[in-house]
């Protein structure tokens, strides 16, 4: 694509990592900053609660990306139900749309944030579609 800057990689991200509360901010790495540096786009999951139609809309978007050469990963929080990703609701919605479940990386709170940030950065840089899939779509 002429002059197009897209990175072709996307992370599903819990609301709590998009908008860390004041109390947990120092307990977590700056996930948005790490995603930006890694060239990932973000699909934000809603906060805890019932969000059936919104999760279906997000699953539709993931299916469209997954079927057209984009690498979709999920970054959650260890200790949160479903990683904060509504995984028990989202996983069947994705399967129903013929999407292989994205690889999941769980960030740990209250440990050394620099180390956690490096672990996340390594996961993000190490993940992409196979080269032949990239060549097929990313022109």
């Amino acid at each position, binding site marked *: *694509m*002429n*002059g*197009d*800057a*897209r*990175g*072709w*990689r*996307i992370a599903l991200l819990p609301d709590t990592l*998009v*908008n860390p509360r004041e109390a947990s901010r120092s307990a977590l790495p700056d996930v*948005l900053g790490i*995603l*930006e540096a*890694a*060239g*990932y*786009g*973000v*699909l*934000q999951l*809603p*906060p805890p609660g019932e*969000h059936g*139609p*919104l999760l*279906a*809309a*997000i699953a*539709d*978007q993931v299916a*469209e*990306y997954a079927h*057209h050469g*984009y690498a979709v990963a999920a970054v959650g929080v260890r200790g949160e139900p479903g990683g904060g990703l509504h995984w028990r609701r989202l996983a069947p919605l994705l399967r129903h749309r013929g999407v292989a479940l994205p690889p999941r990386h769980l960030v740990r709170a209250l440990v050394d944030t620099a180390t956690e940030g490096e672990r996340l950065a390594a996961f993000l840089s190490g993940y992409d579609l196979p080269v032949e899939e990239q060549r097929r779509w990313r022109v």
Partner: protein
Amino acid sequence: MKQDARRRVALIANCLLNQNAKVCEGAHYRGLVSPVVQALRSRGYELQQLPCPELAFAGARRWWAVYEQYDTPAYRAHCRRLAQAIAPLIEQYIRRGDEVILIGLDGSPSTGVRFTSSKPDWGGRPNRPDDDWEIVPRRGIWIEELEAELKRRGLPSVPATGWALDMGRFDEAGSRRDLEEFLESREAAQGSGDDPAVP
């Protein structure tokens, strides 16, 4: 029980967190549009990403299109479904007294706030010359339908502006100035207490 402090929440166009949503050749960043994210976070706004209606409707490999091509009953119904999916969250923010703003994408046929793209005679073989469309001052289809859904719920209008990414020639510095001015005007309005009351 003590209520949470009043929060600032910015509803933001999907592609401001994810440039992969853009139409082919429309992405100016790899992923996040960092000047927007930084401006909002530095002022204490939480981010609430809106769904991208074009991606789910016309696909990741859709053609470029103008307002008039998306102005169909089927696309408006699709936008209404998405609006109904995200509106409960927005209603929750507004009813608990949060300061809610909307940052769209100016020039977009769907997510434009101050401007959208227009060319009533577009259609057929997609071989139009460069820049063969006009920028007109009006909402995009998605923003029209989202605002209509919030109104149906009896909510006050949300102060809004657009990041001018789809205006033909992208001027990042100018866009940044516009956004800063808008955010400063919101702070002044908050300070003077002239915000509309929630019904």
